């Protein structure tokens, strides 16, 4: 039983290592900032996830005590990773991409980085989302 648990935990650790490596390699290999963003937001999620699952299994099967902290870490990771990615993407767009280079919105208002929201400057952005 103990040995089976150890094999399972090792498997998760190895899988996590492979995905972490692939994500980091992607950062170096891909061509531009937007492509590079894909590597850490995805491949690394499973990398960290695998380590957390392995940790939970270790505490559950070998130390015989339940640990919830790993679940919390993955929840916070899922909440924060997209926001960081969004910040980086918006900064990149504002500094390096012209409005002509990306598709039009086909509506009355353009993209948020280049245009003010309806009825005012960008300061009260979230509140003023109109119909």
């Amino acid at each position: 039983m103990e040995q089976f648990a150890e094999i399972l935990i090792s498997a998760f650790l190895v899988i996590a290592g492979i995905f972490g490596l692939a994500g980091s390699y992607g950062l170096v290999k891909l061509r531009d900032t937007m492509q590079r963003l894909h590597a850490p937001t995805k491949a690394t999620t499973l990398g960290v996830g695998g380590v957390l699952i392995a940790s939970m299994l270790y505490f559950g099967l070998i130390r015989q005590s339940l640990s919830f902290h790993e679940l919390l870490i993955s929840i916070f990771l899922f909440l924060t990773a997209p926001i960081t990615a969004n910040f980086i993407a918006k900064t990149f767009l504002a500094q390096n991409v012209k409005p002509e280079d990306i598709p039009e919105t086909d509506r009355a208002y353009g993209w948020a980085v280049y245009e003010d929201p309806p009825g005012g400057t960008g300061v009260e952005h979230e509140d003023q989302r109109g119909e």
Partner: protein
Amino acid sequence: MLARRLVPHPIISVLLLIVWIMLVNKVTVGNLLLGAIFGLAVPVITAPYWPDRPTVHRPFKVLEYILIVLWDIIVANVEVALIILFKPNKKIESHWINVPLELTSAEAITVLAGTITMTPGTVSAMLSADGGNILVHCLDTDDPDSVRADIKQRYERRLKEIFQ
């Protein structure tokens, strides 16, 4: 009526209780009680900072959505890892995709944007100025239209059922 006033957001209360239990990592009566107090007090105290909180109409749809997204995250990881490792840079075709939104509530759009970033080959970059479109960057596709249809059909439709 009194119950509604004391517990205006039962789902947030339960979530806070669960997160508290997970933080202290031990299930005891004292922790449950403290967690319950937090679960009741925090939504009431924070209510002025977050007006027009959305109500979730179908809790079971939320569970379905979470399971689908978790599965897609695993698939996304494998797909992106394969692209990174085995596809030569020249063959990777990245596209910007404009996805018109039917969702109107800020919370629903936030969830959708987060989902798009975590799932297969796509990162959400920004909204249009009035929040009616979302700009998505796709790592590798030869058919941007099918990616747009996929996002609308798989995620936005479900979020609409949950929030509206």
